[in-house]
């Protein structure tokens, strides 16, 4: 378990913990999530990476007390796709970080949260 990344209290620290030095914004990452979430405790998010050789997909909620939510590692037997449900403390950007061929790509999505769910 990557303690350094998951216990980081800033998105910056989470990225460092994951070993991300630079990232490139990509339109090949699709994020399906609500624009507005009534309840920050349960927000469903669907992520698809169309970047060839995707190895991992990480989810970061930039204003959560510990921003790194998850890091999914895919073998070639699995599609680089996941649906999961996350907690958000407040309105913020969700950053999805894809690692492919040793490089990092990202996409962000703004989600407005009515009632924070990180208590």
């Amino acid at each position: 378990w990557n303690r350094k990344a998951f216990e980081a209290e800033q998105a910056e620290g989470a990225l460092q913990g994951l070993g991300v030095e630079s990232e490139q914004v990509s339109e090949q990452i699709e994020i399906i999530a609500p624009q507005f979430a009534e309840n920050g405790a349960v927000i469903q998010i669907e992520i698809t990476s169309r970047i060839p050789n995707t190895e991992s997909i990480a989810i970061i909620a930039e204003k959560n007390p510990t921003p790194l939510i998850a890091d999914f590692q895919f073998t070639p037997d699995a599609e680089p796709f996941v649906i999961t449900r996350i907690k958000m403390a407040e309105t913020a950007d969700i950053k999805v970080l894809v690692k492919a061929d040793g490089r990092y790509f990202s996409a962000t999505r703004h989600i407005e949260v009515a009632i924070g769910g990180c208590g």
Partner: protein
Amino acid sequence: MATMKLRARLKNGITEVKALIIHPMETGRRLDDAGNTVPAHFIQQITLARNGQTVLEAQWGTGISKDPYLTFRLRDGAAGDRIELRWVDNLGATDTIESAVEAG
């Protein structure tokens, strides 16, 4: 104790796996009714295997919702494949559930 539901279905060459894990996913920051902090209790690692071979793994922090829900898609597959999901939490508890792939 059943802590999970797992269902896998083969459709158009993709094995879709849906899972629901029953787990409190406590952040360690929540206060109970008496005002005491509820200790952190959350899943840190999951592993999904097909016929005994790992197909994906994940590490989680406290930001995955209570009673985690997941959908994954595996390439190819056959009806009857054994799909196994295992989790380990920060207190060292673990559970595994297995299910056979159904034809779409």
